């Protein structure tokens, strides 16, 4: 990998930060405000897209900004892993922005300016996390993400939303502090915080016991955002937020930042050699396997659609963590591919849940009888995404699970392989009843005529184009990326490049 100086990563982070300022300034003019959101999303995506060919050609764009602490520069570096994550999040920001416009206007939500401004800051932080070249830069953006998502979680400003916000802060701020301590300790031990493929923390820099403690600290810092049990409690509670926020939290920004942190730390701080020497990845794998199964079982219990999706998210994030913990070429690639495919599928599902809320004001699964007749496109997309999460070919969920399973076999871990299969079955188990209700049952007779003020929307058709198009696009993406994993964005090549770099310590 050769590095070259480039400001593109900086612009990619800065453009949505600048947009948030413009959004705040144009709060009185909603159309102009939405223009800033959408154009920043487009520009950001285009900028990151220009980094893809370079990353594939083993050329890494790097921008050293200034010293943020003595000896540590605020550095952004677009390595393949960063480009991969930034690509996923910025692509999905475009569709989420369109969807948000439709959703917020459809429900005439309050404080839309704050909402869009925070959204833009979130995306800046996410891309900052993706491109952070050292741990301190990473921690800074990680904390910024926490703060920027807080106003989104409490958006409704109801007492439940406020207490959900408290819970969210209690979890994430604690995690941030733990991560900071781990970072400071690492700096104290090694004198460097620069991410290196294959890791920079090892037996030569720190005694084994210290490495174990550091791993525990780092992982508990990262596990909160990646909702690894038992640190997952904030996520179902945060479902109180508006649906596009849940889509962002669960598909694009927060939880993906968490699993991204796990991959960064496993692959670029400790590295496979250190981890296997200490046997640490086994514990991580056990925790991830346990979370995968438990979360899937818990998902069966949820009647609230968004809560079921939340538990499904917890389960699927653990696929990614387990893939990273197995430390084989296929499992690492599969883990990254699952990061992308879970993003497209879960965002589709949340979009659908939001469309049901906007159009029919239904939030419970038990109310969904026959909704497919009223909202055929929406439920069609729902079916595609949920089958994808269950791992059915030819959807992208199948591709990523294929590699994850292959990785489990490469690592000679039949148990992990069995867990992947079981969790896939469980996913099918908690999604199929929804599909059955929606497609096969007859609609419930609507007894109460004056359920909502939005009566004209309650009659049966899909929601507005702002809402329906994004969810169709993400569903189509799931299908296309399942058939041609390397089409459009070179996800497949990037994922393999990353797993190579981690396992070969950066040497090509």
């Amino acid at each position, binding site marked *: 990998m050769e590095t070259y100086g480039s400001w593109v990563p900086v612009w990619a982070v800065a453009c949505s930060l600048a947009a948030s300022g413009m959004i705040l300034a144009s709060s009185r003019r909603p159309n102009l405000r939405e223009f800033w959101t959408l154009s920043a999303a487009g520009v950001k995506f285009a900028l990151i897209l220009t980094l893809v060919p370079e990353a594939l050609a083993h050329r890494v764009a790097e921008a050293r900004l*200034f*010293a*943020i*602490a*003595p000896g*540590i520069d605020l550095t952004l570096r677009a390595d393949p892993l960063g480009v991969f994550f930034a690509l996923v999040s910025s692509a999905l920001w475009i569709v989420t922005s369109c969807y948000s416009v439709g959703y917020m206007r459809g429900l005439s939500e309050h404080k839309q300016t704050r909402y869009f401004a925070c959204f833009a800051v979130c995306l800046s932080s996410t891309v900052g996390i993706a491109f952070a070249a050292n741990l*301190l830069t990473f*921690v*800074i953006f990680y*904390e*910024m993400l*926490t*703060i920027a998502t807080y106003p989104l979680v*409490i958006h409704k*400003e109801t007492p439940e939303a*406020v207490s959900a*916000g*408290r819970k969210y*802060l209690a979890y994430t*701020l*604690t995690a*941030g*502090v*733990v991560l*900071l*301590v781990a970072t*400071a*300790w690492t*700096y*104290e031990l090694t004198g460097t915080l620069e991410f290196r493929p294959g890791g920079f923390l090892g037996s030569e820099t720190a005694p084994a016991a210290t490495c174990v403690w550091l791993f525990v600290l780092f992982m508990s810092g990262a596990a909160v955002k990646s909702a690894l049990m038992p640190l997952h409690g904030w996520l179902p509670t945060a479902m109180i937020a508006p649906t596009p926020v849940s889509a962002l939290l669960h598909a694009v920004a927060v939880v993906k930042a968490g699993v991204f942190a796990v991959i960064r730390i496993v692959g670029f701080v400790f590295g496979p050699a250190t981890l296997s020497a200490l046997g640490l990845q086994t514990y991580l794998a056990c925790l991830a396997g346990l979370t995968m199964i438990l979360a899937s079982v818990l998902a069966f219990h949820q009647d609230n659609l968004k809560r079921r999706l939340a538990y499904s998210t917890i389960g699927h994030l653990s696929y990614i963590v387990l893939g990273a913990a197995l430390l084989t070429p296929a499992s690492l690639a599969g883990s990254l591919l699952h990061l992308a495919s879970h993003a497209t599928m879960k965002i589709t599902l949340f979009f659908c849940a939001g469309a049901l809320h906007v159009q029919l004001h239904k939030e419970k699964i038990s109310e969904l009888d026959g909704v497919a007749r009223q909202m055929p496109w929406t439920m069609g997309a729902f079916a595609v995404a949920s089958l994808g999460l269950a791992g059915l070919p030819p959807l992208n969920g199948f591709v990523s699970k294929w590699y994850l399973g292959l990785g489990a076999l490469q690592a000679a871990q039949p148990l992990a392989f069995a867990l992947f299969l079981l969790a896939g079955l469980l996913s099918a188990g908690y999604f199929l009843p929804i599909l059955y209700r929606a497609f096969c049952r007859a609609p419930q007779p609507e007894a109460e005529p004056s359920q909502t003020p939005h009566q004209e929307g309650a009659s049966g058709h899909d929601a507005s184009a702002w809402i329906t198009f994004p969810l169709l696009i993400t569903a189509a993406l799931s299908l296309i990326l399942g058939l041609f994993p390397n089409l459009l964005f070179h996800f497949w090549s990037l994922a393999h490049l990353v797993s190579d770099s981690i396992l070969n310590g950066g040497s090509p």
Partner: protein
Amino acid sequence: MIGEHFPVLIPVSLLVGAVVSVPLGLWRGSLSRLVALLATGFSVVAAGVGLRHVLRAGEMRYSLGGWPPPIGIEYVADPLALFVVLVVTGVGFAVTVYSKRSLERESPQNHVPFNAVALLFLAGLSGMVMTGDLFNLYVFLEIASLAAYALVAAGEKRAPVAAFRYLVLGTVGASCYLLGVGFLYLATGSLNMADVRAILPLLPHYRLPFIALCLMVIGLGLKMALFPLHVWLPDAYTYASSVGSAYLAPVGTKVAAYALMRVWFGVFGPVAYALPIGAMLVVASVAGILVGSIMAMAQNDLKRMLAYSSVAQVGYIGLGIGLASPLGFIGAVLHILNHAVMKATLFLVSGALAYRFGTTSILPMDDRLRRAMPWTSAAFAVAALSMIGLPPTAGFFSKWYLALACLKAESWPLVAVIALSSLLNAVYFFRVLERMYLRKASAEERIPGPPASNPGEAPPSMLIPILILGLGVLLIGLANAWIVEKVIKLAIPSGL
């Protein structure tokens, strides 16, 4: 050549300002304010120019009245002193700009003496920082303290009691320090800091110097409100007028902390390492951090909450000093700056709330506050995030250096305390932020409404200092590496 006189110019200009402002103010009321602005403004410029000069050309020494140092009083302008003076005068200038409208509202009768006393207070503090003489430090300590008692006493109805309590305890502290100086003079026959430092290692035994050091640490610890010597602080800051606490809180305790560093590192140095001063400071600071934070959570008045938070934050500084390592020193000195700017912002915001709503109680706050004063609320939010220690604000980096220092010293409990304190800060600041931003205005329980004639932000002379300091919190955070590399690292005392 005026350049070589500037170390002494800062306290002198402030003193002259204090003296001149009274007769001028009695002649024309507005002149006292003009004098205050000129004096503080000049001292900021002098401190800035001086710091720039000293960073280029090295430290400057100035003999008062032309008497050579061991006999005469010496002023020392080194990077650390000028850095702290810049913080003191910078915050002082901002508060002076801010003070006009707030004083008109809170104490319209006596703004002339108030300005004079505030100038005296700043003169005392800058003198404490610049002097190279132990007894002269005591003199300026008393000037600053007496002015501080007056600043407190000029507050609301219960202020005189708080001021009296402050006076009694503050005098005990100053007397302890003076006794210490006496013992040290007895042992070494000198009052000049550099001279005493040179003599100390030559002494046959250290009994007297050690007693002196203990007395001085206790005296200065009381002045810097180190736990458990902090009991005067909450009442004093709560009942002083808004401007009064905005002068006192950001810089008052910090200069005592600075004096502690001067005495312990600068005068005693390696000689004192036989005494467990550092361990004692660390224990007291940790207790202060925890108790201050927990007490802050329990307060229902914003100023009182900020006062207890000051106790905790002084603990950060004490912790950095007590670790007696280069990183701890960096953390402590950077936190002097960071906390001064953050606390000034917060106290100025609380003054603006008092100006508009007539109360600083937390309980009735609701989102009409943010609606009426969006910029003030934003500045409060930034300063609060910095107190919690979230990047990229200044407070994050204090935490970073202190955590590094604790890790370097391999004291894991201290790392845990720093982490915990950041979370405790989050609890009590989000309690306020939640009310400010999220609580709906309800019909029965509301802030006594803003005067109908002028709802909205505080007047520009109050708002602009708030915004500049709030922005400063962010900029200092981003520029912290520069500050540490260019200024603080040069100031690390030899022998650490």
